[in-house]
């Protein structure tokens, strides 16, 4: 991999170049840290978070729906807190109800998103990451409280808990899409690092293809049209039309499935073929 020239992706006038280690660190570090942060908050010593979420939810339930709900401390099972709803059986609160799992996933991704090697691009990365982390956590927290308010009110007016719990919880996860869009605004490094990984993987294949074409042209003055279409990134639908007009522009001819290069143009053909963007500068 070290022999391959590192690709550079340009986006919004910034350059993005990543090391392979930083991309590997994202792939391993993000899920691992998300899981560890979740375990930390699932630990008994961190159940203050349960209390805060339960009490805030009860506060808003009583303000908006005037239902007389209560937060009860019941340390009998694995978890300690429950909602007491008048006329209905209590709802036990667990770590998943805090929404911390969504915050953990995004925290893991944000923390381990690779930094570009370009000094100008990475200059304010810590600030951008912090902004993304705080905004995504606050949005998840608020949406989670709103989700519980809707669910508990529906439960209070008579719906069965099993009917509303999973459906509304799943529906509220749409917010993750909004967070990804927001995250891309502040730290485009995440999406770009995924594209970058694809580029790194495809680069050896491209080099091999170019080498194959070069060897064929050197030995027989011709190249396979199919290979040329892939090198020039032509669309399959308009391939035949595009390749013939492209060949005319450069003074090449087409015979059956082959591109024929005149002997005096072979060295120029190879030079243009081996460029980072083949045939782009001269077209």
């Amino acid at each position: 991999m070290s022999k391959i020239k590192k690709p550079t992706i340009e986006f919004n006038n910034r350059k993005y170049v990543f090391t392979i280690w930083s991309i590997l660190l994202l792939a391993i570090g993000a899920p691992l840290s998300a899981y560890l942060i979740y375990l930390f908050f699932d630990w008994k010593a961190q159940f203050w978070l349960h209390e805060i979420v339960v009490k805030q939810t009860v506060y808003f339930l009583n303000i908006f729906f005037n239902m007389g709900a209560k937060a009860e401390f019941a340390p009998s099972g694995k978890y300690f807190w429950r909602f007491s709803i008048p006329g209905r059986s209590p709802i036990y609160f667990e770590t998943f109800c805090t929404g911390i799992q969504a915050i953990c996933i995004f925290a893991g991704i944000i923390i381990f998103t690779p930094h570009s090697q370009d000094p100008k691009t990475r200059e304010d990365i810590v600030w951008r990451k912090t902004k993304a982390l705080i905004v995504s956590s606050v949005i998840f927290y608020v949406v989670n409280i709103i989700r519980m308010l809707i669910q508990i009110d529906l439960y209070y007016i008579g719906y069965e808990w099993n009917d509303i719990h999973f459906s509304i919880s799943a529906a509220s996860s749409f917010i993750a899409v909004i967070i990804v869009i927001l995250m891309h605004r502040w730290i485009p490094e995440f999406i770009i690092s995924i594209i970058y990984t694809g580029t790194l993987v495809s680069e050896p294949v491209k080099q091999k293809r170019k080498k194959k074409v070069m060897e064929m042209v050197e030995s027989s003055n011709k190249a396979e049209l199919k290979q040329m279409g892939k090198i020039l990134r032509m669309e399959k639908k308009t391939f035949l039309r595009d390749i013939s007009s492209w060949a005319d522009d450069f003074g090449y001819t087409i015979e059956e499935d082959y591109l024929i290069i005149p002997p005096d143009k072979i060295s120029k053909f190879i030079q243009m073929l081996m460029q980072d963007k083949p045939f782009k500068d001269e077209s």
Partner: protein
Amino acid sequence: MKPIILKKIIIWLLLTLNLLFAFVIGLTIPLLESKSNYNLGIVMIPLLIILNYIILDRFHYYLKHIKDSEGELDPKT
């Protein structure tokens, strides 16, 4: 308004919010019924200290860029 003054106000607001958040944590801890109520502070205060550093670092970033742009406008200085 000069850009530096605006940036100063933003930084001042962020630091104030940070301090207010620390104050709210301190106010909340004695009200919690959980046995582990002090852990709220143990977890959140180090995060606020890190945030404080990041805000100050941002101020340094603003100053550096304003200084650089002034240097470009007046190459003699």
